[in-house]
């Protein structure tokens, strides 16, 4: 329990620090970045809930972000504007205008509901097939968003959402997401799911209903994604389906993979690292374009660098920066070492805890 409190304290402190620093600087740009960071945290933590515990890669996550965003949009765009923003909207929905807070929750629930219905048959699939199907699901969600003009305004931009998300709201939701992700990890579902990740047969032998466990994690992840999407919608106030497709999937995935999918700490740290890298690279791209060093506009540089970073991390540290242990554990160990040292005046001998790796020769 102590470890978990430490983890929450450290990570939560980091978030609070980022938010506080941004406020202190008072620059709008930093506010925007910090808010994006908090929203990304919600999304990445959601992905961690599913990927980290089940060991299965899911590409559909951003699709559910879209579900949440559009649901919240339809529920909150002021009635006067609905005529312009969503000209073909079904009459029954035209009169609805809810408070953004309710709508964000509704967005999360809508995403969770869609996930619950669509994903149950998919949870019995083997790892590779599950990943592939999740990818297809992303494309399907994107297709629906692009063509269901009545509700999404089709491929065109949807505008008119009230700007309800500010830095503090985003930060609070991010902190709640942090706690929830940790809680899920340590819950019975989370533990059993991790057991099944490591050895499917053994887990089944102790009565774990693996498809059901995976399904629960998937639905919870979609809930996070829906809330994150709705929050984002109310921050940016206008968007199109293109915002919920491959580029964003790649970004969110890079955050989780670089940080470490198996730990909540990995999700948080990864988000920080990639956000900083992304913003810096974007700024660099902007500078290069302004300086007109090359006559073509420089686009895609950020993604290329991030892609190479992802491959690099996977080659050198396949589990990510925080592969197995939450930061609370690491801090507790360090504290224990300091305590021992202060008692005896000597540094303690550290026990070796290297896991036993397999021995086979691989490539010729």
């Amino acid at each position, binding site marked *: 329990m102590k470890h978990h409190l430490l983890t929450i304290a450290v990570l939560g402190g980091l978030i609070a620090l980022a938010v506080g620093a941004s406020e202190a600087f008072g620059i709008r740009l930093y506010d925007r970045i910090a808010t994006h960071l908090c929203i990304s945290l919600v999304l990445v933590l959601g992905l961690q809930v599913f990927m980290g515990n089940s060991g299965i890669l899911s590409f559909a996550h951003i699709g559910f972000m879209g579900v949440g965003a559009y649901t919240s949009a339809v529920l909150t765009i002021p009635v006067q504007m609905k005529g312009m923003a969503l000209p073909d909207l079904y009459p029954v929905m035209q009169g609805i205008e809810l408070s953004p807070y309710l709508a964000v929750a509704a967005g999360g629930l809508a995403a969770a509901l869609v996930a619950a219905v669509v994903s149950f048959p998919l949870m019995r699939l083997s790892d590779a097939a599950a990943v592939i199907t999740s990818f297809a699901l992303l494309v399907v969600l994107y297709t629906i968003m692009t063509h269901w003009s009545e509700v999404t305004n089709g491929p065109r931009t949807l505008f008119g959402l009230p700007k309800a998300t500010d830095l503090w709201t985003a930060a609070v939701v991010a902190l709640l997401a942090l706690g929830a992700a940790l809680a899920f990890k340590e819950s019975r579902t989370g533990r059993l799911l991790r057991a099944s990740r490591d050895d499917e047969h053994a887990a089944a032998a102790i009565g774990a209903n693996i498809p059901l466990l995976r399904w629960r994690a998937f639905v919870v992840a979609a809930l996070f994604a829906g809330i994150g999407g709705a929050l984002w919608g109310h921050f940016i106030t206008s968007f199109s389906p293109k915002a919920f497709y491959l580029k964003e999937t790649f970004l969110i995935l890079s955050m989780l993979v670089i940080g470490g999918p198996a730990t909540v700490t990995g999700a948080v740290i990864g988000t920080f690292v990639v956000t900083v890298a992304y913003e810096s690279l974007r700024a660099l791209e902007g500078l290069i374009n302004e300086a007109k060093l090359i006559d073509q506009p420089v686009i895609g540089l950020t993604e290329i660098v991030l892609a190479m970073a992802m491959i690099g991390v996977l080659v050198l540290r396949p589990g990510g920066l925080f592969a197995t242990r939450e930061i609370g554990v690491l801090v507790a160990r360090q504290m224990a070492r300091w305590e021992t040292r202060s008692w005896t005046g000597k540094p303690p001998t550290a026990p*070796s805890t*290297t*896991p*036993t*790796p*397999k*021995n*086979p*020769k691989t490539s*010729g």
Partner: protein
Amino acid sequence: MLEVTDLEVRYGAIRAVRGISLSVAKGELVALIGANGAGKSSTLMCIAGALNAAAGSVRLAGEDVTSATPEKMVRKGVATVPETRDVFPDLTVSENLRLGSYIRRHDTAGIAQDQEHMFGLFPVLAERAAQPAGTLSGGEQQMLVIARAMMSRPTVLLLDEPSLGLAPVIVDQIFAMIAELKASGLTILLVEQNVAKALLVADRAYVMRLGTVSTSGTAAEISANTDLSALYLGG
């Protein structure tokens, strides 16, 4: 022919083989016997190139092959039949045999000849030549993997527990085969839990226990002196 010196094999921090030395002269059949977990298979797999050696060396006809890959070992004339008896279940018996001769794949005449020879030695394989190997019985599969290993015309054969899980009658047949292979001049290193049978065909034997060699000598010496039941019970 085969010289193993101070070989160590590790699985992470665990030392499965703790510095063993053995040798097999040309044309000899040497048995590596001992209880479960003694490190016999690990030794064999390391010689075969499938496992890394943490320390020590393996020399084949004077040449250092300690870090050679399995493919390289086959090209140098060392064929291995692992304990897991890995036939390719969806390939036919003929296809399995053909794959055994991969390194000689351009010698179509020689391969055809060898396949006939194998069918002569193992008539039951001839019967089932077009059947998927997965439909064969345990004993038939054992014969197949030995025949398959022989298709590469090896000079050294590494056999890991050929009698495992087979009925006594079949085991007799397998060992008769092994004796014939030895008689034809093949150098054989045989890992076996069936000590009695192994000592009947072997020239010499090494007894392994917990990763090291506890006794060695001619087959006659070992069967006379060592308490066989102690071996089986890991004493």
